[in-house]
């Protein structure tokens, strides 16, 4: 247990020392919040359901953080650890493989929660965005979407052989989803055909699950099923193909 806690704490510090990881997890969602908030404001009725634009868009920015952690952060972290021989060094210590992966999962989940709190705090303070009425339901949506994307990240980190490959594939998956899933740009601005097409993107389901819980206090059953299915499948396949060297 001491080993796991020390490892998790060390990994937390290491995460915060990576400028790219910190930027996409903390700074980028805040940047979107302030930039689009300045453009569209948060006046009542500037988004569907008589809510303000920023209030409506906020769960999307959280989904964006989820996407960046799962598609960029975790796969790159695992690929770096394998490529550089860090996993190899850990293998000859009493540290269990599950602890190495568990610490990464805890750190990425903790970063998601910290980033969400920071983002929500900023939105509350600057744009008077109301807090979700059903907090626990929203937290449940956050954890489900977060874990599901961490499972995707684990699978990517398991199958992609090098850091370069992990970054290339991660970027290729992340950037289209960033714009088309409703994470950066709310889907009420999309034409109908694009809304329908975007259901093929997993991040759309993360955004919709969060929006439903956050804005309407409702559980989006179909999106949560997609996320559970994706998470279980990726974790299973990832555990099967994962290699330490």
């Amino acid at each position, binding site marked *: 247990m001491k080993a796991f806690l020390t490892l998790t704490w*060390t990994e937390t510090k290491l995460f915060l020392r990576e400028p790219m990881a910190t930027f996409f997890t903390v700074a980028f969602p805040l940047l979107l919040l302030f930039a689009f908030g300045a453009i569209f404001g948060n006046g009542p009725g500037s988004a569907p359901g008589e809510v303000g634009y920023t209030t409506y868009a906020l769960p999307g920015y959280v989904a964006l953080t989820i996407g960046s952690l799962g598609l960029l952060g975790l796969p790159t972290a695992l690929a770096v650890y394998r490529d*550089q021989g860090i996993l190899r060094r850990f293998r000859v210590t009493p540290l269990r493989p599950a602890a190495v992966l568990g610490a990464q999962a805890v750190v990425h989940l903790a970063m998601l929660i910290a980033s969400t709190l920071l983002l929500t705090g900023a939105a509350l303070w600057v744009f008077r965005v109301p807090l979700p009425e059903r907090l626990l339901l929203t937290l449940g949506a956050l954890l489900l979407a977060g874990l599901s994307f961490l499972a995707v990240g684990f699978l990517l980190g398991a199958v992609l052989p090098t850091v370069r490959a992990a970054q290339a594939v991660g970027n290729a998956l992340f950037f289209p989803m960033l714009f088309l899933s409703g994470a950066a740009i709310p889907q009420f601005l999309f034409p109908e055909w694009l809304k329908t097409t975007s259901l093929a993107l997993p991040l759309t389901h993360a955004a919709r699950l969060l929006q439903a819980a956050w804005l309407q206090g409702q559980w989006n059953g179909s999106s949560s099923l997609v996320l559970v299915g994706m998470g279980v499948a990726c974790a299973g396949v990832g555990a099967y193909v994962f290699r330490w060297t």
Partner: protein
Amino acid sequence: MDTALSIQSLRKTYGATVAVDDLSLKVEPGEIFGLIGPNGAGKTTTVECLLGLRRPDAGSVQVLGMTPQDNPPDLAHRVGAQLQEAALPSRITVAEALDLFGSFYSETRAPDALLDRWGLADERTTPFEALSGGQQQRLFVILAFLHNPDLVVLDEISTGLDPEARRDTRDLIRELRAEGTTVVLVTHFMDEAQALCDRVALLHEGRCVALDAPAALIDRLDAPYRVRFAAPPAFDPAPLRDADGVTQVARRDGEVRVRGREDLLTSVVRHLAAQNAIPDDLHAERATLEDVFLTIANDLSSTQVQTEALHPEKEPS
């Protein structure tokens, strides 16, 4: 106490390449055992099998009475390793690395004393990536025996170390042995193996071609002794060939080099005295492990040529 390390008929292949073939050896507790040989001889693969990083295709490996491939939890507590192609996270500091690795084990040596002794005391807050190659290697050395292991595996430990750190490493290895630790030393530096190891296994293309104490291997050479001297004016070295114990005489750069068996020095000096030829300069040396290695490698490559000539259809293994 059990045998520290026992390898029985170990075989490991990567596709068509045979990395280790039918390797058997035993290392007794408290021994400094050298795995020596050129690059590609199978040293690192052997180490990886005994650390549980690779699964042998055939044969068995027992470390401190345990099978590393089963990942017994106790084994990692009792074995320390410094590996090739291993690293730490680039932004972890020296102090954090020691804290982290210290947390893996129930008992460790005092980290501050280790940092002082290994000249890293001023680098506590330096990230791993900012350390010089030698400093990184010294940090790996510390991490290898931080937890007082019973068996330490050091794979090419001198690589990247400056002469002073190499000397420190040798002292450390001797200290470890004095404390009863078994050391498996993988090296291609023959002088290092000869100076440190109680016994060495010489690997060549995945096979063990010699296994004994360095001195015993040297004794087994046809000509374990050497004498070289500056050739006196008008000296004819040819008659030296008939002197007692002389097997080879060569003249190069104004120096006469004689190889031979025991009492070579007496016999050469007698010969010179009889000729009234007094050299300005004379050195008597014993052959080294390097000579053993070169002799064996030379013999093997000539045998291999013959074998291939006899069996041209056979794949070289």
